[in-house]
């Protein structure tokens, strides 16, 4: 029944297409960064979903001239409008002849990126990066803002990487001070791992790997230990020889590695055992090595 439904899904064509989410509060500098990536040519053949076409107009034109597509996201509360703006935008993409090489979504300033990412996963896309763009100049005021403070804090949850915009507008000691302040806040709020920093303006590199043979727990830990400083984050779900019943979640930020003791859910089908890893590195980094001696059978470029 599941196989039938996959074919029936109106988004079937987007299944497995890599996706990047760029979040950040209003005015944090998302659009400037994305426009920079477009100029760098980092997004050839990508589809770009934005909230407001007006804000990205010039460079959307640049994207259109290449192979890309631009679709506008709708918004609003479900309970009044009974619609799904993101789903409708993806549907537009799925209707076209060629699926995009990649989908990049610029979240609205009020969106919680983790939620958008969750929606993309449910729709079958392969998430490779969830970035949060942070304006170091304003973050302290926004963190305590009477209207949006809690939302701004919530936006940090579940993101893979923090990207500071406008860092160059601050003196280095001041930028340093604010970074530290933010880290203290994140650690204090601390249910989850605080995301690592990415200080370059280029789009962080992201590589994905599909694991088709089981690994020993020790192999995974050894692999994680040898990753260099160019790797900002590695995360995913793995098929471990010791845990045949389901995928085991893995996350590495800096020196901290977490590999769950047991699966939290079963495989989607008994014979569909597979793991998946995403490695996010600096833009200049080489493609990573993967934790298996076997050659990887399928590489997803992202």
């Amino acid at each position, binding site marked *: 029944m*599941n196989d039938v439904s996959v074919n029936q899904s109106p988004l079937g064509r987007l299944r497995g297409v890599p996706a990047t989410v760029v979040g950040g509060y209003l005015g944090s500098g998302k659009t400037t960064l994305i426009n920079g990536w477009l100029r760098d040519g980092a997004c050839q053949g990508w589809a770009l979903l934005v909230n407001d076409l007006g804000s990205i107009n010039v460079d959307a034109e640049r994207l259109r001239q290449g192979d890309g597509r631009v679709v506008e996201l709708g918004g*609003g509360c479900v309970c*009044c409008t009974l619609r799904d703006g993101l789903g409708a935008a993806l549907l537009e993409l799925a209707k076209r002849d060629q699926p995009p090489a990649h989908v990049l979504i610029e979240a609205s300033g009020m969106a919680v990126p983790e939620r958008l990412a969750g929606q993309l996963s449910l729709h079958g896309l392969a998430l490779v990066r969830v970035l949060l763009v942070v304006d170091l100049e304003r973050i302290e005021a926004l963190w305590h803002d009477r209207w949006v403070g809690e939302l701004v804090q919530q936006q940090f949850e579940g993101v893979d990487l923090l990207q500071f915009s406008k860092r160059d507008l601050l003196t280095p000691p001041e930028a340093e001070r604010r970074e530290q302040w933010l880290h203290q806040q994140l650690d204090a709020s601390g249910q989850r791992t605080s995301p690592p920093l990415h200080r370059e303006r280029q789009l962080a590199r992201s590589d994905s790997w599909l694991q088709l043979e089981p690994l020993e727990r020790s192999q995974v830990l050894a692999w994680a230990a040898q990753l260099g400083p160019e790797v900002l984050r590695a995360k995913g779900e793995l098929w471990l020889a010791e845990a045949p019943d389901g995928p085991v979640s893995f996350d590495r930020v800096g020196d901290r590695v977490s590999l769950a003791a047991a699966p939290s859910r079963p495989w989607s089908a008994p014979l569909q055992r597979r793991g998946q890893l995403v490695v996010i590195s600096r833009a200049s980094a080489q493609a990573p090595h993967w934790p298996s001696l076997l050659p990887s059978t399928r590489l997803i470029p992202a």
Partner: protein
Amino acid sequence: MDAVAAELILSGGSILTMEGVCPRAEAIAIAGGRILAVGARAAVMAHAGPDTKQIDLAGRTLLPGFIDAHGHFANALQVVGWANIQRLPAGPVTSIADLQQVLREHVVSHPVAKGEWVIAYGYDPDGFSDGRPLDKADLDGLFPDNPVMVIHNSNHGAVLNSAALALAGYDASTPDPAGGVIVRRPGSTEPAGLVMETAFIPLFLHMPQPSEDARLAEFEAAQRLYTSKGITTVQDGATVAADLTLFQRAAREGRLCVDLVLLPLVLDVPSMLRERFPDFQGQPLELPQPAREAFGSYRDRLKLQGIKLLVDGSPQGKTAFWGEPLLTPGPNGEANWRGQPVCAPEQLMEAVAQLSAQGIQLFSHCNGDAAIDLMIEACRRAGLNPEQDHRTVIIHSQFMAPAQLEQYAELGLHPSFFTVHAFFFGDVHLANLGPERAGRMSPMASAMALGLHCSNHNDFSVTPIEPMRMLETAMTRRTRTGVVLGASERVSAEAALRALTIEAAWQIREESSKGSLATGKRADLVILDANPTETAPERLNDIAVVATLKDGVCVYGSLEGDNA
């Protein structure tokens, strides 16, 4: 003596005019879709001519047609094809067996082919006598080959059967998405059927996308939902771009038998403009002159009245924005949860300033006191004041903090309240907010005392179209379990009726042609089988509509009352 003779004269019942000077009349005369005369029987009868049809109300009650102060007509086009599984008294359901029976009957009246969706709305597990919620297995037996979606009464989730879960791709291996939940069977990760919030949203993509023609075909049934309750002016209170095109076509084709008021959703305004004025270059939210002029007047029974802003979510979904935390955890178990705004304060300030400077009337959805504060601040910064007669309406104005009504008066803001919340969600609000804060919901008596123009709404399809329940809850503020929320905010039947008629007309700038019975006004009328000002509040919702007239023409029931 008037040159025109009446086409129709009604007398012999209670006639409630909603006019301050003359609240009761003995007779009313109609010609050319307008009220020719209303008042003492002898004076009205002077307008009778040889062809005048005279109707004896036989003790029934006649009022101005009700005005839908806020709701979503677009949802009515969908709901007419769905099964109503609301619990008593809004619907017929008290058990899972009842629900199954409604679904069985629904597919007899709305046959589905294999694989087609069956959709029901109004699911409320608290109303079941079974002591357990609905499970996918309860639906699988009836519909093994059709996806079924039983929408939760919050509109934020639904129970799915196995076919629908498969279509969505949800199984035991699917993790809960952030901000949502796929409810599991006890002791396993197998989905039980209910999916909420972000796990529900992706379902919209799998639902049938009816063609424009198919949607046009539903206009008659959708309008009947309103006319059967005496409503002659209907609102689509968050119009999206695609629906604007549909409504304009329906109007052109003469499909509207009531007046339809649209409030384009601010988020969709740029795409509406791009489609209609592709060459216009302006600031964001700057409207070209012809677009501005399109507001405020009817064409083929359709008008744009203002622009809809959204500041927060819903209190029962805990997505409203309050100043203080709730007593219960947030929608995803968050501690100290007080909700969040749905639009950035900077953008709201900008939108209010930009749009009001262009003379566009604003209708702003604000449920929690912090959302209301934010809107007040935006209006203050935009320099709004009552002398401008801008008539900014704060839709819901649900949980107001002390002193906010005074700020409404100072800035010229007016509330459209949502008193049926006391009945449908009052017990939930008590648990979330405690008696004091819950008691401040929809403070109608205080607002009226300050001279504010207060309307009342059902926010269809959030709650059913029931003018009489609006009346009842404005008068009693009683929850399902009988608790009175904020006793001092109860109002009289007359005041509660004004909120459904003349005050609702004022909010859409139609008080000179609608909302009361006076010479020259439109003959938009409703005839009820009992007088609501003389009926015990708990019996109000039993009152039936005998006939509804729009511009003097009977659009529901019959004047003689023979099908009532």
